[in-house]
């Protein structure tokens, strides 16, 4: 048999089938069935009927939104400064910003917990504030990297063209630099917003007892309620697909 290049993809296809397609199929089956294996929409309708689950969804969205906004506000100027700094030290600076990603995430949050505990006296006083700090700490590098990349690869002649056509500093930023960095912002947001909705480890470790979507799935599965757990996963999947579509549209227009 002659070797074809497409055959290089076989290991990945096998992986895809076993670890992605099959579990997804199982999740779908559980989502739309009840305990006796019959088709039902009850799980779904239940989610939207219960004020507890809706509150969790809203809280998750809120935590994710605040995390994303602050990550963006911190990451954008940081990435700009990193990309504009002198060539030789640039990579070292970037490394410093990204190194936290290499350290185990629970270890990082544990360290953060100790620091916050020291400052605030008792973590229970500011659960939401602490959660946001933890989330930002966790997700910031994921926002910095894609934005850094667009700044780093930004065609300098476009900036010169902007100035040549009469744009001052402020106008150059608003009408050239910002639109050029939109793809980086968009991928930064997808990298931060969706994981931030489900990442309940930070909440747990910082003693925030409020549920987010991730905690909800965890609690259903812990109670062996595969059907509702799968249903929440499916809802998250739909949200992710929705956001990706919007994001894709936005970047294409840009």
């Amino acid at each position, binding site marked *: 048999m002659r070797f074809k290049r497409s055959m290089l993809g076989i290991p990945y296809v096998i992986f895809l089938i076993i670890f992605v397609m099959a579990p997804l199929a199982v999740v779908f089956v559980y989502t739309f069935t009840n305990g006796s294996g019959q088709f039902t929409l009850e799980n779904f309708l239940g989610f939207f009927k219960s004020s507890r689950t809706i509150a969790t969804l809203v809280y998750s969205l809120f935590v994710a939104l605040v995390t994303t906004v602050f990550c963006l506000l911190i990451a954008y100027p940081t990435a700009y400064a990193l990309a504009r700094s002198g060539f030789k030290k640039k990579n070292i600076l970037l490394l410093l910003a990204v190194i936290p990603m290499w350290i185990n995430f629970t270890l990082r949050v544990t360290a953060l917990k100790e620091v916050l505990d020291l400052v605030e006296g008792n973590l229970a006083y500011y659960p939401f504030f602490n959660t946001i700090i933890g989330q930002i700490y966790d997700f910031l590098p994921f926002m910095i990297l894609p934005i850094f990349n667009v700044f780093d690869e930004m*065609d300098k*002649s*476009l900036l*010169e*063209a*902007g*100035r*040549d*056509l*009469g*744009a*001052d500093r402020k*106008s150059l930023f608003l*009408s*050239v630099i910002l*639109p*050029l960095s*939109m793809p980086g912002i968009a991928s930064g947001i997808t990298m931060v917003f969706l994981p931030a909705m489900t990442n309940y480890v930070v909440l747990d470790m910082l003693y925030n007892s409020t549920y987010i979507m991730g905690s909800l799935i965890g609690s259903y599965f812990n109670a062996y309620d595969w059907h509702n757990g799968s249903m929440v996963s499916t809802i998250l999947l739909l949200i992710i697909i929705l956001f990706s579509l919007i994001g894709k549209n936005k970047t294409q227009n*840009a």
Partner: protein
Amino acid sequence: MENILELKHITKSYEDGINVIEDLNLTVKKGELITLLGPSGCGKTTLLRMIGGFDLPNSGEILLHGEDIGQLPPEKRPINTVFQKYALFPFLNIYDNIAFGLKQRKVDKNLIRQKVKHALSVVDLEGFEKRNVDSLSGGQQQRVAVARAIVNEPEILLLDEPLSALDHKMRLEMQAEIRNMHDNLGMTFIYVTHDQEEAMNLSDRIVVMANGVIQQEGAPEEIYDRPANIFVADFIGVSNIFTGDVTDKKRARFAGKIFKTDSDLPVGTRIEAMIRPENVEITGAGEGAIDAVVTSDIYKGSHHEITAEFGKYEVTVYGKSRVETGSTIGIDFPREYIHLMRHDMDMNVFDGVINQDGSADFTYFTLAPDAEFMRDKAPGSKVQVVFESKDADLSDDPEAGFVTGNIDAIMYIGDHYTYIVRGDNDEDYYADDDWLWNMGDRVSIVVPQDKFRYRELI
């Protein structure tokens, strides 16, 4: 015509201290299409960027209508640029790209619409308003870039090698269009290119640059027919160049013969004689001034490019009909086409190639460039060596120097002598020496290793 732009004593150096532009003076007239022409690294793009405001000169003035704009940022200058790679904004459609400059100036919306429409018609892209940048071909993007600049009605339009990314046929077409656009708009264009043919086709005036210095400025015909020096002669078109001297009033010796010329250079002047291949006359063997043996004949469509040898010289001639390789032809240099240039005796310049063993072969001698220069140089790559006559000394020990020859001319210059040493292959070297030697003395030329300056030729 009134002067629109004056550059006075412009000097520009970068961090490493090397001067890119040295004490440059240039005047641009209102409404002309002037081309800055030169090989890469000659400083033409730097000069354009200083006019545009993207680089600032270290010293000197840039006067626009008599007012110094040398330190103003680009956005404050009534000058617009067409960039080498177009630099269109990918996130805007064609309309918004062209309207960008007008919007910055807060021009009325309806007026913007009219002006953009007009600019699109000037570049022949009516109806392209809604298109995306990446749906356009290179030539179309080029037109949009031009429209985006001219819509602002700048005092001066700068064009930085705008056609270099296009294929040959497209380039010719765009040259004609740019020329037409210039004539219709009456705007002042400053055009940068390394392509001498493009400069010839387009320009009212050409400024030839090398090593940050203007070598010559003038109309295309003037630069082609009467180049100021050997660099210009060599860079523009194909030329036959022979070294020699003025022997008598309106007579010069070169290529082993004495020719009548129209030149008024004083007797004794060291010269380079140039004659273009299309001006060399072919006669029957024995009927011309020189008999030469044909070494090749290449048919070029409009003419035959004939190369012929006589003695140690070679000449290129454009002929109407084919001649047999190996046959003997007669050659004449008509008096009115012989152009004499005063030979510059401050500099010794030789072109050569890198050898396999890391030395550099300059035909008459071999040198060993320093390791710093040789790093990343492949064998076969072309190099140029320059040494100044003031750094060259003479020695009677033939082993002391890197090349030997006989003294051919002696000039007393105030406190020292400048010698012309004729090498064994009839090449000339210029050397300053404090001591008086005699005509015909056998000498070798000594130059300290660190006084050789090497440059890669591209």
